[in-house]
């Protein structure tokens, strides 16, 4: 059992209304010094069996066909390493 994380973010050149809304709100709330925010999606996949290279390649294909809209989004696929614990 492994966890694979797929991060999907709007392409740089593409308008990100969500991010814009968040920057504005953070400013109004007095959180200063945040020049830009991009909002994307995070998928956590629980994968059975162990992660061979083939398996990862397959998951990359899955991300490309289903999780990301590559016309307007970029994505990264990575095996979860125990990250920062919940704040």
């Amino acid at each position, binding site marked *: 059992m492994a966890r694979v994380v797929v991060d999907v973010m709007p392409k740089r050149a593409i308008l990100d*209304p*969500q991010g*814009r*809304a*968040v920057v*504005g*709100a953070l400013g*109004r*709330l007095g959180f200063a010094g945040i020049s830009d925010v991009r*909002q994307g999606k995070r998928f956590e996949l629980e994968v059975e069996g162990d992660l061979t290279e083939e398996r990862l390649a397959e998951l990359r294909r899955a991300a490309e066909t289903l999780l990301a809209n590559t016309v307007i989004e970029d994505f990264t696929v990575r095996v979860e390493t125990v990250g920062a614990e919940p704040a």
Partner: protein
Amino acid sequence: MQKGKSMSTRIGVVTFPGSLDDRDARRAVEIAGGEAVALWHADTDLGGVDAVVLPGGFSYGDYLRCGAIARFAPIMTPVIEAARDGLPVLGICNGFQVLCESHLLPGALVRNDRRKFVCRDQPLRIENAGTAWTSAYSAGQEIVIPIKNGEGGFVADEATLDRIEAGGQVVVRYAGDNPNGSYRDIAGICNEAGNVVGLMPHPEHAVEELCGPTTDGLGFFASLLRQFVPATSP
């Protein structure tokens, strides 16, 4: 409800950037016999209104989370204070989401289980006819008014759900097919005091025979006016 008297009941309707049903809510208030007062998101006081409606729409585009940004609008400071002091507040759809984000109401609203926006005429059952906004109905009464939402799924943890059920805080339930996966078919709830009510369905779209499926929505606005009739009679 005597129109003449309740005319003096002033109900504020807040317009946030991206509010859409504010005109409809004001119209509904007037048709019910009240006086609608337009409140602006940047205002810092409520202008002495007798009650407040937070209307439907897509405040700030609902880009981050529905109601998450509107909840911090300047007008919300006096709204939250007054609500805690018992001012009747009705949140419709996006307004309901704002009330949850403000923690005036428990739980939250998430993406519909069918993952699509749904607009249709929805049968509902009034579960609590004792709130500031539902006294014109009788408990168990079935009504039909429009719903239209993409993130109308009411969720909360089991303990919270049991608590609000026990406390009679479930005000309205979906009758028949549950349109959005709301836990326990919940369409509307109130706070413990019963003055703050949040509704996913849109009573303001069911106040005119001509433009709505029914006029069943009038009761929400009439309920409030009724309360104020004694206050305003000599």
